[in-house]
């Protein structure tokens, strides 16, 4: 059995540029991803998935598969020994479908065989009697149709009581006088398609039975302990009998918060008493994980004639798909950020997420704030135009600042330099237009050779956005770290923080080296078996939280050694950020000091060239200023900004899961396009380091703000170039041409 080795750093403390510990192995191809795991005697698992978006299951006959060559197990819901359902927030998702299937690709049965091809062939022999039902595919009509979950699993969790069927959560924020009138009003309706995380490493992992009834699962995931807590009850095991270990992660972006193969692999491993490996195909990955919520947003902004926002009224409709996943938190986040980083005395915000038979949606980088930002920034530009005020000036005039009160009633007590990021981004010098003729690769259409300059217009766009750092609404969010000091002066650090490519392995070592004053520090494998939970590598929280936990554990270890006068020391400490409290279910107002822990903002300026006759785009240049608190590893911060910007560019221009009656029609990288190096321009990144008072070392997370803001900024540049409204992303060539 192999386990991903954690390469060790040579040196590096907080604030220094430190090469990624996994950088060289990834570039040279030597890094072991979860799909590279091997074990002696290993079987291959495969999942039979629903070809229907909505159907009743009248019966499942596995007899045709059981006797197939190489087959060791064929499992259905009847073989699930414990709880039949699981879920991140609500247990509404069947381990294996039992009475009906609610989305295209829902797992129905499992096979383990000697060879992956044998497993695939055997699943084809399983006969499932489906009775197709009418799929719910229009989120606007979902609340009038039969409930997909008659037992209403998300009701009664402190949420507003909404009696309509198929509501995952609905939230209303009433702030000030929601009927307050302004002298000027602009309104619009905005749509966002379904974006996919599109990580390159498909879902994969290895489950190994321990011979004593328990199981070890090696998997690419974002939160080891919450995987364990979902897997163990379904297997009818105690939590210590299920140990989850982090295998090499090929990208996450929220898409690995939910379980993929963990439970299925463990079921097959325990059933066969053999190690079982599951690797999703690309097509299976697209149908097998949750996506970013598609949204429709109705917005009206009322302002004084000199540009001060008076009242913002927003209605947000999110399509959650068939199961809750983290939809309830996304619903709340979209509401929290609906007005953007602007002070407004009055607001009425409604955010609703519905169940449908469309692809299931959950966490993705930006988590509700991306959808909100696309709408509020389009509105701010519209308002600037209506008032004939410079769009940057309008944003500065309304910028939030410490002391401002948000629509939830929370007062900003920490750092939030909105005006500073706006000014710094707006001051970045724009590149001169490039002369013609030029290489077609430097024109819209790129290698397609479609223009020599004909039809090309240039536009400049600007956008600002903000997002919360960490988990919200009263969630007890913590991270543990364990530090062992050895007699020879060396130390090792245990923390279950998932390294998903964001660089938290470096961060942990930088903090430990800084606190211990030593370079001889080793990072132990990330696992549930030696240390308590680290929480999720999500919500731009991991750097803040892991730094807090490792700092506290290091300081405690030094004190312990001081007290004992040397020798071996082994301490574990749990770090918590300042407490948050829930929103009032009726008013959407904060019930304590804060609903979110802290906020981070970013501003972005974009130059784009658009071939207005063919509707093709080349983003020429992007400049951004981002509020990062403290850059623990400045090179990694820049990397997060560039990567996050590229993901937002993808949503702006090309990335969309397409469906027909709930069935995904483009589940491949041939037809789900993500940006290439010819689509992504150079990014000038200004890091604004203003310490967050509540965070260790003043740190803020950096992964999400660039994604929140870049979609909005890029589409603003396209609007400037084309003069069109462009109210939907991804923007299609048809939209630019006006077909």
């Amino acid at each position, binding site marked *: 059995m192999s386990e991903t080795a954690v390469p060790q750093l040579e040196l590096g403390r907080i604030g220094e540029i430190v090469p990624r510990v996994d950088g060289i192995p990834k570039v040279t191809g030597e890094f072991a991803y979860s799909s590279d795991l091997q074990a002696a005697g290993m079987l291959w698992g495969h999942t039979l998935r629903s070809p229907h978006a909505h159907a009743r299951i009248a019966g499942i006959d596995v007899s045709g598969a059981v006797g197939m060559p190489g087959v060791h197990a064929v499992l259905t819901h009847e073989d699930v020994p414990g709880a039949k359902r699981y879920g991140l927030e609500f247990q509404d998702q069947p381990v294996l479908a039992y009475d009906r299937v609610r989305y295209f690709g829902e797992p129905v049965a499992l096979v383990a065989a000697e060879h992956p091809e044998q497993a695939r062939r055997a699943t084809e022999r399983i006969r499932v009697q489906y009775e197709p039902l009418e799929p719910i595919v229009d989120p606007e009509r979902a609340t009038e149709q039969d409930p997909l979950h008659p037992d209403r699993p998300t009701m009664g969790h402190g949420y507003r009581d909404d009696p309509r069927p198929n509501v995952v959560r609905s939230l209303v924020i009433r702030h000030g006088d929601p009927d307050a009138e302004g002298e000027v009003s602009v309104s619009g309706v905005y749509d966002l398609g379904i974006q996919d995380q599109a990580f390159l490493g498909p879902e994969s992992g290895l489950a190994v039975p321990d011979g004593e009834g328990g199981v070890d699962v090696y998997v690419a995931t974002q939160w080891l302990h919450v995987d364990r807590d979902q897997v163990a009850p379904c297997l009818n095991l105690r939590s210590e009998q299920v140990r989850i270990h982090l295998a090499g992660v090929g990208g996450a972006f929220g898409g690995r918060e939910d379980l993929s193969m963990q439970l299925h692999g463990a079921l097959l491993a325990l059933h066969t008493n053999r190690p079982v490996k599951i690797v999703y195909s690309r097509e299976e990955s697209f149908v097998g994980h949750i996506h970013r919520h598609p949204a429709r947003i109705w917005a009206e902004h009322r302002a004084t004639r000199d540009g001060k926002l008076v009242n913002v009224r927003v209605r947000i409709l999110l399509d959650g798909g068939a199961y809750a996943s983290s939809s309830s938190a996304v619903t709340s986040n979209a509401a929290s950020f609906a007005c953007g980083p602007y002070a407004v005395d009055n607001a009425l915000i409604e955010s609703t997420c519905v169940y449908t038979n469309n692809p299931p949606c959950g966490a993705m980088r930006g988590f509700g704030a991306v959808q909100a930002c696309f709408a509020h920034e389009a509105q701010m530009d519209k308002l600037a135009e209506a008032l004939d005020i410079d769009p940057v000036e309008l944003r500065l005039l309304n910028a939030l600042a410490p002391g401002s009160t948000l629509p939830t009633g929370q007062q900003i007590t920490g750092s939030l330099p909105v005006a500073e990021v706006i000014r710094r981004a707006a001051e970045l010098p724009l590149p001169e237009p490039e002369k013609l003729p030029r290489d077609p690769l430097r024109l819209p259409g790129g*290698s397609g*050779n479609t223009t*020599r300059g004909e039809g090309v217009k240039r536009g400049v766009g600007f956008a600002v956005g903000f997002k919360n750092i960490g988990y919200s609404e009263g969630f007890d969010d913590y991270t543990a770290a364990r530090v062992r000091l050895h007699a020879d002066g060396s130390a090792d650090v245990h923390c279950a923080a998932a390294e998903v490519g964001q660089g938290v392995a470096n961060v942990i070592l930088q903090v430990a080296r800084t606190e211990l004053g030593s370079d001889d520090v080793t990072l132990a494998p990330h696992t549930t078996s030696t240390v308590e939970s680290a929480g999720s590598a999500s919500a731009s929280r991991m750097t803040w939280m892991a730094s807090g936990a490792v700092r506290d554990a290091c300081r405690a270890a030094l004190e312990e050694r001081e007290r004992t006068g040397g020798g071996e020391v082994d301490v574990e400490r749990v770090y918590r950020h300042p407490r948050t409290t829930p929103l009032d279910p009726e008013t959407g107002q904060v019930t304590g000091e804060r609903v979110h822990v802290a906020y981070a903002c970013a501003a972005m300026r974009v130059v784009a060239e658009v071939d207005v006759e063919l509707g093709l785009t080349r983003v020429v240049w992007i400049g951004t200023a981002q509020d990062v608190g403290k850059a623990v590893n400045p090179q990694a911060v820049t990397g997060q900004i560039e990567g996050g910007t590229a993901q937002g560019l993808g949503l702006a221009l090309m990335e969309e899961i397409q469906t027909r009656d709930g069935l995904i029609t483009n589940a491949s990288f041939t037809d789900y396009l993500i940006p290439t190096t010819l689509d992504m321009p150079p990014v000038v990144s200004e890091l604004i380091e203003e310490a967050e008072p509540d965070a260790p070392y003043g740190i803020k997370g950096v992964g999400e703000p660039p994604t929140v803001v870049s979609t909005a900024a890029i589409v603003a540049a396209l609007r400037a170039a084309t003069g069109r409204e462009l109210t939907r992303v991804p923007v299609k060539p048809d939209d630019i041409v006006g077909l």
Partner: protein
Amino acid sequence: MDVLTPRSLEEALRLKAERPEAVPIQGGTDVMVELNFDRARPVALLNLNEVAELRGWSRQDDRVWLGGALSYAEAMEPTLAAALPALAEASRTVGGPQIRNRGTIGGNLGTSSPAGDALPPLLVCGAEVKLASVRGERTVALSDFLVGPKRNVLAEDELILGVSVDAGVSRQTFMKVGPRNAMVIAVVSLALRVDGELRAAFGSAGPVPMLVRSDLDQIGSFPQRVAEAASPIDDVRGTASYRRHALRILTKRALDRCLW
């Protein structure tokens, strides 16, 4: 699955006659995708990579012979690109460097996709496809070779040897529209060649890439004629109305380029 690897053309034709179900594979950029997506499990592959007779290109008076194994990367090399510039431009639009090193003109012909990037440039150059079997050789005009989406007239015992094209003096260009700036399947594509007449061919705008010809004095109406000759559909990559619109724009721009 058997993998048959002939060392000569004679052996390849014999194997194809004995095992007509064997799927020919050269670069594998189409066949392997089908295998990896579990859409095809052929009982045998006929690996043509060791058949030297299929490689390279040569000049014969005003015509150029392109072996079936000619890669896109080879079609972009300066000497051949000077003779067949539209084919070189089309080759640059295919995938990334690795795909262009592996993918071949013969494979593009064999797959006969409506979106095959090499097909419009070959059509405007009067391509004739040479097919062979143990029964003998025959030559088929490319426009007759393509009969439907991913369908052609290849008999089950036949292999594609290569294609002969007119490389006489002309102006030509190729353009391809996709929603990102590299590595896309064509939403719509167009090749244009101007010599004694106007010859345009489009891809991804009908069941097969199609040739449209006109006299030189019809320049003004030619973009509209090309757009009207198309029979595009709505699919995940684009809409029929956009494809028709884009063909008009592309044809106009291509005429400007070639008549300048």
